[in-house]
């Protein structure tokens, strides 16, 4: 049913899924271009579903989120396997997982958004293990991964942080979650993933701190 029916998303949810569709579509394009093994069936199914539910950017274009979302999409677009692994595979996939997990646990969303979020989590799960394996294979030791991570990810994290206030303006009251909450969960997940990849925790936290401080 979920794959063909048009869901009754409310206005805020339509905006949210329009944004998520843009990022998931970019991720799939980047994987198809640079790391084909990450362009999984589950990822394609998610995007087909989102295109069906929110086919245009109309909900986004008239809002203050349009520019910062486009800025983030622009810095997340690249032509190399390494950049795609770090930006899409590591950073934005962890962010997506954080958002989908939050949707799952948040009663303020409708059942339709809960269903879409579950598909998002499934798509994330379909590439998680392989992404980590590829990062280690292609980059090497924890220290080398850390160097690649800090060299590549800074503009993306800065652009993400620039979205913060606008996200709060549109979603905070409606869904009872603030950007600070979301970033807390995102950073916690990212630090945990970084440790799994062999990076030194203190260095990762210091790097994220400096980036979020705008230094």
């Amino acid at each position, binding site marked *: 049913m979920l794959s063909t029916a048009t869901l009754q998303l409310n206005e805020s949810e339509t905006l949210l899924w329009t944004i998520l569709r843009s990022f998931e579509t970019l991720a799939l394009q980047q994987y198809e271009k640079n790391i084909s093994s990450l362009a999984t069936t589950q990822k394609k199914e998610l995007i087909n579903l989102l295109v069906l539910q929110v086919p245009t950017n109309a909900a986004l274009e008239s809002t203050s989120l349009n520019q910062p979302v486009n800025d983030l999409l622009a810095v997340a677009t690249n032509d190399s396997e390494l950049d795609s692994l770090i930006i899409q595979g590591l950073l934005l996939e962890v962010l997506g997982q954080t958002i989908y997990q939050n949707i799952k646990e948040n009663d303020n969303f409708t059942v339709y958004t809960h269903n879409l979020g579950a598909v998002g989590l499934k798509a994330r799960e379909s590439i998680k293990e392989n992404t980590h394996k590829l990062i280690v294979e292609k980059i090497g030791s924890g220290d080398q991964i850390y160097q690649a991570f800090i060299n590549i990810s800074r503009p993306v994290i800065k652009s993400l942080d620039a979205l*913060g206030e606008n996200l709060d303006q549109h979603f905070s009251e409606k869904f009872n979650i603030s*950007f*600070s*909450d979301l*970033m*807390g*969960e995102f*950073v*916690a*997940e990212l*630090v*945990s993933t970084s440790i799994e990849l062999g990076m030194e*925790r*203190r260095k990762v*936290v*210091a*790097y*994220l*701190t*400096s980036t*979020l*401080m*705008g*230094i």
Partner: protein
Amino acid sequence: MQLSTACAVRPATEQESINKLMGLAVFGEKVAAKIYLLMSELKEEYAPILTKFAQMEAQHGAWFMEASRKNDIEPDKEFADNELGYLIYQVDNHFKARSFESLAVVQGFIVESLAIATYESFLSVAHKYPGTHEVFKKALEEENYHVDWILRYLRLRFFDAEEDFRVLAERVNIQGIDCMGGTMMNIADYLDKVGLSGADCAGAMMDGYTQLLEKVGFEQKKATKHVVNMFMPLFHKYRRGEKTK
């Protein structure tokens, strides 16, 4: 402790920065001594050791003052008072409420986290200020010892009552981080001017603080989330160039 002597001509921005940082170190140690003394009044059974801790903190302040004098550094009391005033207000309220545990969290987690993060980093530039390396190194060792004691106390006090600790930590920490985390943001630029990285110090404070929460029973992701949540508004203020207090 015997200190070697040196005089150096340094740029005005560095002089102003080191005056402020040393002011915070000297007078922050006095506040730490006060907190341990207040704690000693609330739990008689721990009074001997807490009074000793207070004496050690006061001694750190005296060492830093002496090292400053020998390096032509004038610890900036006005700056320190301004930064520490909000902390003292909170400490007085916790004492009025006779909450030993709240004082333990403020001192053991927040005040000591800031001190440890900055002292650890300062050691890398201490050679520029002769005589400071040995006193900061010694103070750092002693601060770590104090934190170990507080952690042990909290682990025993909240054994099998982690939820109670979580509620206490969140209540006390939100105020406390607003204060000492805010101070860390306010001194970040001064740290840069004496050759340190303000961001690295802030990162070290966040990470050190997260690890302390884990040692008392927070699960790693929850601890990180808790700390990042508290720091995010401070980061935003820092980026906008606003004072955090």
